[in-house]
C-alpha cells in the first residue's frame, strides 16, 4: 500500500509540466543519440550532464535517465535500416532486423522492437519498485567493511563482464582508482599526486574524464573509420510499423523471456543491456522450433533482445538507487549528478529523498509511454533528422563537450583534462583495454578508500575485519568467484561461431 502511495507521489512529481518536458527532451535526445553511430548513452549523458545543473536534482536525473533508456530504443533504427548499430546493445538486433528490412518488413521489425522495448522497460520498472526499497533497507545495515567489499565486488563484476580479458579490465580499474587518489587526502587533508597544480587539489573531476573517455574518444575514432551507411528505403508510416496480431503472438513469449533475462542481468554491475541482449538472442535461438530462421529474419530474434536491453536499464537502476553502486558508465554519470547536487547516493536515498527516487520511477513509466509513441509514429522523421545532422555531429559533440565541461567549474583546465582523457580513451580502445572500469574506478575510488580506512580504524589496523565479518567475507568470496570462474568457463566452452 505504501509503495502505491509513494508511486502516486512520484507521478505527481514527474507529471509537473517542467519535469514532463525534461522527460520528453531526455527520451527524444536518447532516441537520436542511440540512432547515431559514434556516440553512446554514456557519452551523451556525460556531455549533457552540465546542461542539467540548473534543473535541480529531480529534473537532472529525469532527463539523464530518459537519455539512458531512450538510447536503447534509438539504436534499433540504424541496426535494422543500415546494418550499423547505433548502440552496442543493438548489435544483436541487426542479425535478424536487417534481413527483415531486406524482405520489405522493416516497419514490422522496428514496430516489434519498439513494443518489445516498451514491455521490457515498463515491466523492469515494476521490478525496480519491488526490489529497490527492500535492497535499500538491507543495505542500511552495512558497515564500512561490508561497503568496501561490496564496492570491490562491484568493480570486479564490471571487469568480469566488460571486454575479453579480466586482467586488462583490472588494470583499467586500477587506473581509475589511481585517478581518484589525486587531490587532498580525505582524512588528513594532505595534497596527494597534485604535482603542485592548484586545480588538482580538489581532485580530478569525474565529468571531464567521463566526457573525454566516452563522448570525445568515440568521435575521434569515428574520424578514423569510414563506415558505409547505406540506408534501406522502406515505408515507415504509422500503420506499416504496427505489427499484426500474428506477429505479436509469435513474439510474445520472447518478450516475456527478454524482460526476465534483461532485468536480472541488468542488476549485475558491468553486464547491462549489451550482454542481456546477446543472452536473450542465444536463449531464443536455442528454444526455437525453427533455429535455422535466426539470422534470416526471425521475429523472436528482434523482439527478445530488444525487450532484454530495455529491461536491463530498469535492472541497472536497482543497485544505483538502493546501494549507490553504478552498474554501467551511464548509471555512474547519474550517480555523479547526485553527488554534484550534494546528495549522498546509497540506501538512505529512498528515505531522505523519496520525491527524487519516486519521481524518477514515475518518469520512467511516462518516458516509456512517450518512447513507444515516438518510435511508432516518428520513425521517418528520426531517419530524416539523422541523415541531416550526421555530417556536423563531430563538431557538435566537440562544442557541447567543451561548453558542458567548462560550465561545471568555469575552468579551461577542465577542458584540457577532457581533451587529455579523450586521447587516453582513444588509446585504450586501440590497445583493447575497456574504458568502463576506469570511469567506475574514478567514481568509486574515493568512497572505497574512505570505507577501507574507516574499517581499518575500527579494527585497529587489522585487515582481518574484511574476512571475519560474514557479509564482507561473502562479498569477497563472490569477488574471487567473479574473477576466477569466467576464464574457466570460457576455456571449457567449445569454440562456436
Amino acid at each position, binding site marked *: 500500500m505504501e509503495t502505491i502511495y509513494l508511486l502516486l507521489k512520484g507521478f505527481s512529481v514527474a507529471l509537473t509540466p517542467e519535469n514532463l518536458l525534461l522527460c520528453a527532451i531526455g527520451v527524444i535526445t536518447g532516441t537520436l543519440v542511440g540512432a547515431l553511430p559514434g556516440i553512446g548513452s554514456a557519452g551523451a549523458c556525460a556531455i549533457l550532464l552540465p546542461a542539467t545543473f540548473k534543473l535541480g536534482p529531480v529534473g537532472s536525473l529525469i532527463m539523464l535517465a530518459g537519455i539512458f533508456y531512450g538510447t536503447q530504443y534509438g539504436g534499433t533504427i540504424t541496426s535494422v535500416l543500415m546494418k550499423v548499430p547505433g548502440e552496442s546493445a543493438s548489435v544483436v538486433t541487426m542479425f535478424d532486423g536487417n534481413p527483415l528490412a531486406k524482405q520489405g518488413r522493416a516497419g514490422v521489425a522496428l514496430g516489434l522492437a519498439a513494443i518489445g522495448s516498451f514491455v521490457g522497460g515498463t515491466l523492469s520498472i515494476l521490478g525496480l519498485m519491488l526490489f529497490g526499497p527492500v535492497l535499500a533497507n538491507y543495505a542500511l545495515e552495512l558497515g564500512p567493511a561490508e561497503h568496501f567489499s561490496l564496492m570491490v565486488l562491484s568493480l570486479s563484476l564490471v571487469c568480469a563482464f566488460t571486454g*575479453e580479458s579480466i586482467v586488462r579490465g583490472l588494470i583499467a580499474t586500477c587506473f581509475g582508482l*589511481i585517478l581518484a587518489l589525486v587531490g587532498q587526502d580525505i582524512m588528513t587533508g594532505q595534497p596527494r599526486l597534485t604535482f603542485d597544480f592548484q586545480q588538482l587539489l580538489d581532485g580530478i573531476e569525474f565529468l571531464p574524464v567521463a566526457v573525454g573517455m566516452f563522448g570525445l574518444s568515440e568521435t575521434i*575514432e569515428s*574520424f578514423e573509420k569510414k563506415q558505409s551507411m547505406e540506408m534501406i528505403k522502406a515505408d515507415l508510416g504509422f500503420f506499416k510499423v504496427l505489427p499484426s496480431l500474428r506477429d505479436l503472438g509469435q513474439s510474445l513469449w520472447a518478450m516475456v523471456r527478454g524482460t526476465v533475462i534483461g532485468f536480472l542481468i541488468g542488476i549485475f554491475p558491468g553486464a547491462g543491456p549489451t550482454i542481456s541482449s546477446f543472452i536473450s538472442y542465444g536463449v531464443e535461438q536455442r528454444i526455437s522450433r525453427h533455429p535455422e530462421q535466426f539470422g534470416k529474419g526471425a521475429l523472436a530474434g528482434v523482439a527478445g533482445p530488444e525487450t532484454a536491453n530495455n529491461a536491463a536499464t530498469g535492472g541497472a537502476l536497482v543497485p544505483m538507487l538502493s546501494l549507490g553502486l553504478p552498474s554501467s558508465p551511464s548509471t555512474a554519470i547519474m550517480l555523479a549528478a547526485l553527488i554534484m547536487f550534494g546528495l549522498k547516493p546509497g540506501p538512505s536515498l529512498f528515505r531522505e529523498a523519496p520525491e527524487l527516487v519516486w519521481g524518477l520511477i514515475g518518469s520512467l513509466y511516462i518516458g516509456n509511454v512517450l518512447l513507444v509513441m515516438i518510435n511508432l509514429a516518428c520513425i521517418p522523421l528520426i531517419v530524416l533528422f539523422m541523415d541531416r545532422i550526421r555530417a556536423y555531429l563531430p563538431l557538435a559533440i*566537440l562544442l557541447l563537450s*567543451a561548453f558542458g565541461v567548462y560550465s561545471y567549474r*568555469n575552468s579551461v583546465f577542465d577542458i584540457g583534462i577532457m581533451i587529455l582523457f*579523450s*586521447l587516453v580513451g582513444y588509446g585504450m580502445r586501440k590497445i583493447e583495454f575497456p574504458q568502463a572500469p576506469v570511469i567506475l574506478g574514478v567514481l568509486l575510488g574515493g568512497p572505497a578508500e574512505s570505507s577501507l580506512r574507516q574499517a581499518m580504524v575500527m579494527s585497529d589496523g587489522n585487515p582481518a575485519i574484511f574476512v571475519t565479518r560474514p557479509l564482507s567475507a561473502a562479498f569477497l568470496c563472490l569477488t574471487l568467484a567473479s574473477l576466477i570462474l569466467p576464464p574457466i568457463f570460457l576455456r571449457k566452452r567449445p569454440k562456436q561461431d
Partner: protein
Amino acid sequence: MIKGQGSIQAHLPQILTGLLIWGIVAGLVWFTRGLPYTDEGAPGPRFMPVLLAVFLGILNVLYWVDVFFFQRGGKLDLPRVSDLVRPAGFILVGVLMIFLWERLGVVATVLIASFIELKGIQGYSWTRSIWVGLLFSLSTWVLFQLILRVPLPAGPFEFLLSL
C-alpha cells in the same frame, strides 16, 4: 621458449603499454614518498597508492603473460599513420579552442574552431563552413550564456555584453 619471443615487433604496442604501466607503478611509489604510510595506527594517505601500485605491478606481469604465453590481444587493429591525420586534426582543434577560449572569447573561438573543422578536416566549401560556423557560434552562445546563464568569457567582445 616463449611463443611470441621471435615477434617482439609484433607485440610492440603491448610491450610499450606494459612499460607505461611500470612507469605509473614507479610514479605512484615515488611521488607519494613524502606521505605517511600510517596515520595513528590506521592507514595513512600513502597506504592506498602503494596498495594500488602493488596490484598494478602484479597485473602488469599477468598482462604480459597473457600476451606472450597465451597470445591474447596479439592482433591489434591499429590505425596506419595516414588514418591518424583526421583524428589528430580534430584533437588539435580542441587544443586550439583551449588556447583561444579566454583570449578571444567563446564566440570567436567557436567560429574559428568550427571553420577549421568543417573546411580543413571535413572538406566542406568556404561558404558552408562559414555559415555553419556562425550558426554554431551563435547557438552555443545563446544556449549557454543566455538560457543556461553560464558566465562565458567574451574576450575582446566584452562590450557586447553591456549592450
